[in-house]
């Protein structure tokens, strides 16, 4: 067996230890309220990652040994905090982790070589747009945002999958158009401009993002998709001009939406000053911030912070999804919060490393795009709850409660590992 997998095993054992300690401390803190059988989740969680590890040994023996353990650590943090808030939700979440891991292994087995996806780029791109359109048309509105499609008994958040599909599409599309997009058609004031027709994709993408904001009231997904697009365009062409023009277009469009759509304006005004309306519109953000603040340097300890009201609901609205970072920051303090952010940064580091090592443009763009998508999403939601950016309803990858989020992020991880396995095999 390959050394990468042994390193991964050691990493996973470390994560297993952290997970066990985490669950035990929540359990000891809350044993009067929760049942000891719920501790089974911890063991079950470890078994799942053992299966994933064995799967990688069989399917991708040379893949990066850090990404899976980092993802495991993030899911552990999420599961511990969800368990701490509501053991029933933790049971659901662990089912989603099973589904996610199954999807992850299926993807690895079915696709095999990641480059095969390139030939389906337009199909996948069309699928991404279709999913978004479908949400706009038949989506259900929850808390004023239209993010979900009801499918049987469950709710699917198609935006999470559009993100992946968009990255795959852009990786294929940009690899193809890389050269034309990089060329200057004419020079004005010393700045080289590409031919107008090549600005088409930029305009289309801006339009899609703004439509997502206006129709779905989903600023988070819009920012995420547009950010992915700009980042990948930059990696493909190396032209910051695109980024500048793109940002300018988006800013102008946002201003237009801000002027015309009341809900966007409200989001912004809450962000700029949540304090006056602390019982109504500012409630979620203020409660979230107060929860973070309560953590101090080292936090209250897992399961020991004050999260549940005497009627059983959480103080922070949507604590298990939008607010999960705040719960973690409350229980583990600045030390734990910074630690979690560093785990994301390490994931980004390994992901971008996979991208730089890849030997073809498609793989490079794909890995860079996936990694950026992952990190930027984490930034948007953590930034949202710490008031760096307006609070949106997107999930914290691997940590937040939610099936769509868990499954799509496992697929993201699968794609990254597939790129990594092929390159490292080639190097060997």
């Amino acid at each position, binding site marked *: 067996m390959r050394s990468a997998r042994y390193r991964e095993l050691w990493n996973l054992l470390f994560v297993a230890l952290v997970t066990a300690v985490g669950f035990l401390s929540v359990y000891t803190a809350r044993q009067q309220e929760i049942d000891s059988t719920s501790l089974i989740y911890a063991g079950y969680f470890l078994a799942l990652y053992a299966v994933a590890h064995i799967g990688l040994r069989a399917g991708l023996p040379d893949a990066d040994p850090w990404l899976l353990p980092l993802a495991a650590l993030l899911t552990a943090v999420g599961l511990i905090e969800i368990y701490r808030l509501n053991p029933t939700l933790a049971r659901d979440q662990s089912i989603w982790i099973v589904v996610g891991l199954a999807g992850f292994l299926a993807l690895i087995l079915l696709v095999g070589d990641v480059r095969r996806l390139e030939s389906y780029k337009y199909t996948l791109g069309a699928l991404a747009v279709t999913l978004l359109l479908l949400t706009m048309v038949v989506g259900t509105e929850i808390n004023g945002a239209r993010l979900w499609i009801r499918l049987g008994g469950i709710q699917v958040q198609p935006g999470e999958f559009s993100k992946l599909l968009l990255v795959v599409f852009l990786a294929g599309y940009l690899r193809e158009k890389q050269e034309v997009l990089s060329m200057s058609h004419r020079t004005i004031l010393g700045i080289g401009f590409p031919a107008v027709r090549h600005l088409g994709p930029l305009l289309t993408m801006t339009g899609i993002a703004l439509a997502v904001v206006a129709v779905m009231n989903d600023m988070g997904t819009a920012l995420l998709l547009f950010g992915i697009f700009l980042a990948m365009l930059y990696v493909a062409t190396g032209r910051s001009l695109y980024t500048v023009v793109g940002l300018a277009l988006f800013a102008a469009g946002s201003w237009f939406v801000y002027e015309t759509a009341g809900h966007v304006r409200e989001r912004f005004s809450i962000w700029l000053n949540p304090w006056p309306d602390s019982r109504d519109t500012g409630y979620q953000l203020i409660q979230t911030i107060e929860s973070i603040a309560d953590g101090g340097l080292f936090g209250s300890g897992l399961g020991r912070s004050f999260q549940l009201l005497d009627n059983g609901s959480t103080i922070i609205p949507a604590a298990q999804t939008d607010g999960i970072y705040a719960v973690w920051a409350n229980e583990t303090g600045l030390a734990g919060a910074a630690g979690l952010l560093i785990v994301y*940064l390490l994931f980004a580091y390994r992901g971008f490393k996979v991208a730089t090592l890849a030997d073809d443009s498609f793989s490079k763009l794909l890995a860079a795009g996936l990694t950026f998508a992952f990190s930027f999403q984490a930034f948007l939601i953590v930034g949202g709850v710490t008031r760096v950016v307006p609070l949106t309803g997107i999930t914290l990858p691997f940590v937040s409660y939610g099936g769509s989020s868990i499954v799509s992020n496992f697929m993201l991880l699968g794609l990254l590992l597939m790129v990594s396995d092929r390159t490292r095999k080639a190097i060997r």
Partner: protein
Amino acid sequence: MNARIGRLFWIAALGTLILVTMTAYWQIWAAPDLAAREDNARLVYRQLSVKRGLIYDAGGRTVLAANKRRVKNGITLYLRRYPFGPLFAQPVGYNTVGEGRTALELYYNDYLTSSNSDLATLFDKLGDKLQGQTVTGNDLVTSLSMPAQRAAARGLGALHGAVVALEPQTGRVLAMASSPGYNPNDVAGAIKRAAAPGSGSPLLNRATQGLYAPGSTFKVVTATAALESGRYTPDTIIDGKGTCITIQTVPLCNAGGESAGQVSLAEALTFSYNTVFAQIGEQVGKDRLYRTMQAYGFFQKPPADFPSDELSRSGMYSRGRFLSPSAPVDIARVAIGQERLLATPLQMATVAATIANGGMRMAPSLVDKAVSPSGKTVFESRPEQITRVMSSQTAADLTSMMRRVVEEGTGTAANVGNLSVAGKTGTAETGTAGLNNAWFIAFAPAERPRIAVAVVIERTPEFGGTIAAPIARDVIEAYLASGVAK
């Protein structure tokens, strides 16, 4: 392309740095302010999860504020219950989730929740935490006397007014009642009812915040200034100049059309001659009278262990606003407790108590001690001397003068069998014809005072001697009969 990917990583690193910095900002820099915000649910629940200390009457005999334990969804909350309902509402106050807290519940909140930094308490609290138990607060033992408080409440009945009783030697508050009152077990309901027109402000603590023209009770203060000036003795003869005199072009008359001739200072107090005291006021002058008032505690909030917002200053007021002592006044009318002079019942009780204590003014105090859950006394109040208002000779002179008021003057209704009560009546017009604010201040027994009382009744057709004096008598009697007094 690799260089650009590298740049993306540095952007991610920068993003991480921003998020860590912002998290640190909230958790360290902004945390204290956020923790104290009223919308912070954990603050409210944390306080409710503390088993607040009990509040007792004097000597720790009876519980005035207890706890009701409620467990729901694994959260144990302690809600306040007041076994005597409205009886102790003014001095004890209330502690609620939605409506905040008042009075002793507010002033001693740190002791009641064990958030005071006393070492014995901290140790107990730590022990609780280690055992995973509830934090229990310190109990308070107040100076409130059950018999005196009951007599005060019974005396007020449905009337609007207030009663304050003090222990002269220590300033300990023996009774504090205000009517109409409210039930602290239903504060939300009381607040709703108080908003209705004609409710009579039941949430206002008239004993410490109610401002009334002191009327003739203030003549005791004027007499103090006169005796202390050295120009008067109780026997100094003053010409009362008939029924009315003219002060600043406006006639100033004696009550009931009585005529005062050549009378002694003692007689003038006994029969409460306005024409005499107006002249004394002018003779003594604003400076000296104001200095005496200042010494008695006028123009400042009383130094009591009570929330500052619930204490009013006594002094000159114009249209509800406190006037600086330097504002020009008609000193002759101030001297008889009129003009724009307003005083609280607590202030007038302090006047009586100071004379009873031989001229030394004591700080009013409601709590005798705080006791930690393990039984250690973590705080003990000591009688605090504020200032000497008059010589003990002046105090003795005033005592015998006030004794005569009750024996043969306007305050005979305060006579208690074989007990010697010293007092002074007051009846101030309210501006509505036929309705007065009736006052009585007193202390007893005159030779060795153990209780000083001030009673005020709002907007009554009766007089201080007829309606307020009997209430003061009942409070004195109930207190002295209880045998609590040492």
